[in-house]
């Protein structure tokens, strides 16, 4: 069996270098590969392209890499709530490519699925369509969106087995399984690492074929952006 388990985050990120593109799973601060992000900050890599729905928020998560001026370009869908990114974007210090969220997800899925792109109705008649081929299919106007790949994907899973089969938890899943499909090196940071056979085949959300390296990280900050509650009646 291919040995995918790594003893530490540093071993798992071996080969990651300045100038590379990284897909980072997560929606805001939820479902982030936190240990990987911290390691990238610590290593001081720079000139990075980050593909992520938000690129961190509130100065936390991937925003730590923004603060450290480690990022050259961000491909994302939303930068509200991310003052570091907004500031650098408005100052022209960083390149930002905004994608509609569904288009971002599908571009990544398309890359991982070996497709040359897809036609979507989203963005037709907007700035998103500028420079893109549009086509009418059965009376509906679509635009062509191309696949999106990266050198590395850093993925957070709830449980992974030693071959990389993954199970996610609640809304921490988001972009994680898609990004795992679309990178040259996919690194899974799992809350819990189990033996092969412990995950029921029907409970595997991401088959291990897409995963190259996995390490266990039982401790996570699991940061909350907006702590909203209701009173008990």
């Amino acid at each position, binding site marked *: 069996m291919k040995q995918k388990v790594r003893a530490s985050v540093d071993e798992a990120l071996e080969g990651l270098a300045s100038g590379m593109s990284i897909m980072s799973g997560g929606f805001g601060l939820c479902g982030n590969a936190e240990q990987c992000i911290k390691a990238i900050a610590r290593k001081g890599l720079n000139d990075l392209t980050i593909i992520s729905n938000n690129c961190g928020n509130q100065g936390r998560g991937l925003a730590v890499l923004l603060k450290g001026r480690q990022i050259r370009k961000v491909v994302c869908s939303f930068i509200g709530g991310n003052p570091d990114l907004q500031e650098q974007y408005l100052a022209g210090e960083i390149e930002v490519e905004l994608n*509609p*969220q*569904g288009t971002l*997800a599908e571009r990544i899925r398309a890359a991982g699925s070996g497709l040359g792109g897809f036609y979507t109705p989203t963005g037709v008649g907007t700035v998103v369509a500028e420079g893109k081929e549009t086509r009418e299919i059965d009376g509906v106007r679509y635009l062509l969106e191309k696949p999106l790949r990266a050198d590395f994907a850093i993925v957070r899973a709830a449980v992974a087995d030693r071959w990389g089969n993954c199970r996610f938890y609640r*809304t921490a*899943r*988001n*972009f994680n399984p898609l990004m795992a499909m679309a990178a040259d090196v996919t690194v899974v940071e799992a809350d819990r690492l189990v033996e092969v056979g412990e995950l029921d085949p029907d409970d595997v959300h991401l088959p291990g074929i897409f995963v190259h390296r996995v390490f266990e990280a039982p401790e996570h900050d699991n940061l909350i952006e907006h702590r909203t509650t209701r009173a008990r009646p």
Partner: protein
Amino acid sequence: MTWSREEIARRAARELADGDVANLGIGLPTEVANYVPPDVSVVLHSENGLLGMGPFPFEDQIDPQIINAGKQTVTVLPGASAFDSALSFAMIRGGHVDVAILGGLEVAANGDLANWTVPGKLVTGMGGAMDLAKGARRVLVLQTHVSKDGTPKLVGRLTLPATALACVHRVLTELGVFDCAGDHFVCVERATGVSEEEVARSTGARVVFR
């Protein structure tokens, strides 16, 4: 008297039919969930990957890994499902979401929507707004009728960059309820005490009253 934000949310909740799958945008649209009548059962879709979203948690129920698209902590209801972002937007673009209630900056009489950017002023990105506006079967927009300086936000033609074209069915503002009817708006309801003249004066396109 014009409607308050709460009254707009209450009125919007009456637009939901029993059995609807609904996606509620960030801000005021999120609050619509608080006013859904007890005899109406609505399944809430959150585009970050949750169908069957419940209310905010009690303090001792908070789970950082259960959030809505506004990154607020929420709960899951019995029958809920969790999924990845591609599947979530397949639900949206595929026409499986019955209604989206979104915030707006400008709506044109032909249903064009602008709600994601004000060049030079507001830079947040479109997030899921373009997919939702295009993909949901019915699109309701909650917004103020005029901007702070009195400029109409229900217009003949968008002045702001579009989110999606010909997508809005109905707009709810502090002045009432308006349907997009092509080259004009149809006012289907006015807030109590608001005159037809006031509505006409505050709207940037022709309004037909009924």
